[in-house]
């Protein structure tokens, strides 16, 4: 039954993309939990992850694993820079949510344009992490990059779960999510947690960008669609729950894959955005979440 095979094939690749959306969604949650801020510049981390790795690979001649590692660290640092330069001055002054959104959106544009100046407007891609033949189960081919995506994503989610449950910093961040004032009174450096959440979130975004780039392409302007997909994932998961965001990402990926089957590949972002609108209207608290 070629029809069924095709459908399963599509779903498999949808799950793969979904992992990526999940990681980006977790990035939204990490910052939101630590500070109550929704960082609209989240997409640049994804874009920069792929772009910086590409630059290190082609211009500096680094091997891929090293290039990826350096890129993740660099993007985490850029996350801290955004936090220090844009977010913290506004946060200190208790700027309104709208101002924060606008400022992070402006930061998105600035970084996009800087990337455009530095790297040009041509789409770039990365080689697969390993060039083994795709895994074949029945008539379904699972690309090796997809396995990389699944493996790294699950590993990261597990590591994050441990981090938030076991480490001092992770617990402090959870305390901030529950009640920032109380956390501050308990001696938790809330402002430092904000910086840390940006670094963590940016690193996650960069990993997502590096993982997905070999299967698609990256360019200076891929950030916003990724950010919106990640935001949808976070909303599906009830905004704030990292695991929920991850599950939401997978659901979005699958829904998008189905939309591609139905309407063609060109409209995948339109499909994702329409899902966002429908969800916002029907169930703004997400699939699992309670009303805010």
């Amino acid at each position: 039954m070629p029809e069924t095979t095709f459908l399963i094939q599509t779903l498999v690749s949808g799950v793969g993309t979904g992992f990526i959306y999940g990681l980006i969604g977790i990035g939204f949650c990490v910052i939101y939990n630590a500070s109550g801020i929704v960082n609209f510049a989240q997409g640049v981390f994804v874009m920069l992850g792929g772009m910086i790795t590409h630059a290190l690979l082609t211009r500096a001649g680094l091997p891929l694993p090293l290039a990826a590692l350096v890129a993740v660290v660099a993007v985490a640092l850029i996350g801290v820079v955004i936090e220090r330069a844009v977010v913290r001055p506004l946060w200190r002054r208790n700027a309104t949510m709208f101002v924060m959104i606008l400022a992070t959106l402006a930061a998105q544009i600035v970084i996009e344009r800087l990337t455009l100046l530095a790297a040009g407007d041509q789409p770039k891609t990365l080689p697969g992490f390993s060039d083994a033949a795709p895994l074949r189960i029945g008539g379904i081919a699972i690309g090796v990059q997809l396995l990389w995506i699944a493996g790294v994503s699950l590993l990261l989610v597990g590591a994050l779960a441990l981090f938030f449950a076991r480490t001092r910093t992770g617990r402090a961040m959870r305390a901030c999510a529950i009640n920032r004032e109380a956390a501050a009174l308990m001696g938790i450096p809330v402002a430092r947690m904000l910086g840390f959440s940006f670094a963590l979130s940016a690193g996650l975004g960069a990993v997502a960008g590096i993982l997905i780039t070999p299967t698609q392409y990256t360019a200076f302007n891929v950030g916003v669609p990724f950010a919106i997909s990640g935001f949808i994932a976070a909303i599906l998961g009830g905004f704030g729950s990292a695991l929920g965001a991850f599950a939401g990402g997978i659901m979005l990926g699958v829904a998008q894959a189905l939309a591609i089957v139905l309407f063609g590949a060109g409209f995948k972002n339109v499909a994702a955005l329409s899902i966002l609108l429908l969800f916002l209207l029907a169930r703004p608290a997400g699939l699992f979440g309670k009303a805010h």
Partner: protein
Amino acid sequence: MTSPATTSPPSGRARLAPALLWAAGAALVAYAFVAGGYLVTVLGFAALYAIFVTGLNFFMGYTGQVSFGQNAFAAIGGYTSAVLTTAYNWPVFAAMPLGIGAAALLALAIGYPTLRLRGHYLAMATLALGMIVQEIAVQWDRVTMGYTGIAAIPPLGAFGRELPNERAQLAALLAALALAVWVASRLKHSRLGHALAAIAGSEDAARALGIDVARYKLIAFVVAAVYAAFAGSMFAHFVGFVSPEVFGLHMVVLGFTMLYVGGIGTVYGPLVGALIISLLPETFRGFKEFQDLAYGAALIVILIYAPKGLASLARLWTRRGAAPDAAAAATAGTSRGDAGAAR
């Protein structure tokens, strides 16, 4: 429903700066008409954006709502004009109203459910709206020509005659802008405008006064969409070219930058902001990428270092406190504009 603050005239200090700006603007326009050349194009852009930002101001400044997706309506206006006049040989003055009508209908259909959302959700939903329309412009290439865009759009004109040159086009744009600002100012001081100001001050209080909050918000959204579509359509005919890039996210950020520089919530703020911001990056002339970079950076700087102006916006956004003090907002807005220009 009429609060004294919204109707009291601005103080003397608040009048001086605008008077100077008016004189400078008038001199600039006069010089452009005499000298012609590139300045005409720059002022044309300023006028287009002033119309767009006036609409944005209507929804945000007057009503205290937020939309990051106004580029969607500009794109609908621009593309409707472009497609109908090039592929179907429609006259400009038939295509333009159709584009504006389409945008208004979409605003009505989308706004009805979406405007119930608040905060991040409303922000992201409107952002998504802008992205959806832009994606459709890219993907529906049989009609929109995809990334290539549509070129050779006929210039403004009526009754089978095109306006002869850029100066005449600029004159038409300025007339359109004058009309747009006049309508906005009339609306602001109408029953509708007072209702919107009440909503901006406090939705609950407005509701208690018997204002149908959802309906008025929707009206404001549609008005903003009509302005955006009007600007988008005029853009298509003035520049002669549209592409998905033209109506991208940078258009929204640029609009906000102008709104902040000029003074949010004021009738003439969009004019001032559009003029200053259009003139500033002419030093970077020829470097499109630098322009967007400059707009974005300028917006961040204004947001961080102009807390006085933000205070008035904070009141609008949180919808708390008493009726919005429009006069104070105007003062803060213009002084903020000067500060922004000086940097």
